[in-house]
């Protein structure tokens, strides 16, 4: 195409055989000038460069499209528990996860072994053996890294102020993504860690709550526990408002263990062992003398 245009232009220039005397222009000069401006030499190197640049641009476009369309991202599996009981799932990397009611996880596993999981609600996770790559769990602004065999409970309900991580086997590292992942606390077996959703506060200490796994095991234990704490545990576990009508009984201690019992059965057992009464009034349970 370019050659044809060049030929037409050269013929037209050759036809210009008479120019005014004051014009310092000749068809030869015009042709040379045209060639210099519009027909740069197409050396083999130039051709190679042109092809290579075009190919690079095409590849860059394809990669950009692939990244934007998440073609290289691993598949994300979402598990939601909308049933009225807890569910247990075995994950592709051998880990086991128990998901509480109204809770969900979204996880992905890369070929490298890198495992990431987002948690909403409450779960208990048991990982098996040393991981090929660290497991990264995200719950709200908490980031939990697991490198070896571990078992932990994560409570991260959106309406709670804190995200609670209780470790029952092995150890994990906990960080706040606002403070940065480099600033983490090592939380070992028997300890728990709390990450504030609002204050960038991360702390860990020994776990004194024997009922942190009650949602999974159905076991509720009280050991010289003040009645005010007993009612708080029962309120959370059964989703029932319980009010202590008389302050003098708030600090009476109670000891007992219950497994998979109804709230009414537990209240009856407390009534038997202590001098208090539990009465249902409208939507509340009232604890009185």
């Amino acid at each position, binding site marked *: 195409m370019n050659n044809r245009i060049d030929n037409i232009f050269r013929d037209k220039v050759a036809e210009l055989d008479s120019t005014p005397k004051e014009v310092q222009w000749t068809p030869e000069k015009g042709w040379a000038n045209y060639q210099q401006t519009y027909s740069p030499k197409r050396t083999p190197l130039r051709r190679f460069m042109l092809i290579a640049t075009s190919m690079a641009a095409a590849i860059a476009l394809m990669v950009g499209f692939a990244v934007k369309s998440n073609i290289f991202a691993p598949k994300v599996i979402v598990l939601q528990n909308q049933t009225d009981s807890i569910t247990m799932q075995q994950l592709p990397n051998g880990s086991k996860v128990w998901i509480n009611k109204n809770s969900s996880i979204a996880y992905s596993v890369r070929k490298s072994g890198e495992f990431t999981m987002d948690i909403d609600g409450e779960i208990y996770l048991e990982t098996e053996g040393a991981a090929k790559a660290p497991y990264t769990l995200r719950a709200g602004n908490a980031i939990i890294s697991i490198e070896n065999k571990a078992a932990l409970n994560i409570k991260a309900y959106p309406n709670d102020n804190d995200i609670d991580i209780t470790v029952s086997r092995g150890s994990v590292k906990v960080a*706040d993504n606002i*403070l940065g992942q480099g*600033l*983490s*606390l*090592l939380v070992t077996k028997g300890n728990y860690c*709390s990450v*504030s959703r609002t*204050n*960038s*506060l*991360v*702390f*860990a*200490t*020994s776990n*004194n709550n024997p009922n942190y796994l009650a949602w999974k095991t159905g076991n509720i234990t009280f050991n*010289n526990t*003040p009645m*005010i*704490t007993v009612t*708080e545990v029962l309120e959370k576990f059964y989703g029932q408002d319980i009010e202590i009508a008389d302050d*003098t009984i*708030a*600090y*009476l*201690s109670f000891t007992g263990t219950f497994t998979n019992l109804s709230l009414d059965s537990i209240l009856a057992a407390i009534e038997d062992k202590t001098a208090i009464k539990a009465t249902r009034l409208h939507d509340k349970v009232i604890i009185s003398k």
Partner: protein
Amino acid sequence: MKTILSTLLLLLALQATANAQCAISEKIDWSKEYDGKFLKDFEVKQSDSNVTRFSIILRKDIRYALHFVNPSTPISNIKLYVSDKEEYPVPLNTQVDSEKNHSVSWLKVNETGAYHLYIEFNEKCENDCVVMLLYLEEEEE
């Protein structure tokens, strides 16, 4: 008989009061009690080792205030120590008000990172406890 009964009742009442003093469950809105931005309350119960450890991430150039309230023992029986992750002690400025049974320790660290707070009960007494309140008093711009 009457004397024994009244002594028992008195002991029960004292026990109930002692327990009542340290429970966070009293639902006091601690956030309004002292100056600064309230961060968290912790109920610290005496453990077998006499010392309870908290690990916490503290930020540099911030003055934290640690208030100890509602102890079930005289406030002078409770000591606070702070160390960095290498267990080097961090200096504290502490004021004890024995009359109000309250103490406050101010803390400022030079490096953001993990620190350990140790709360020690001087006398071994099972179930002794205290409420520790963490406030952020000032933040350098």
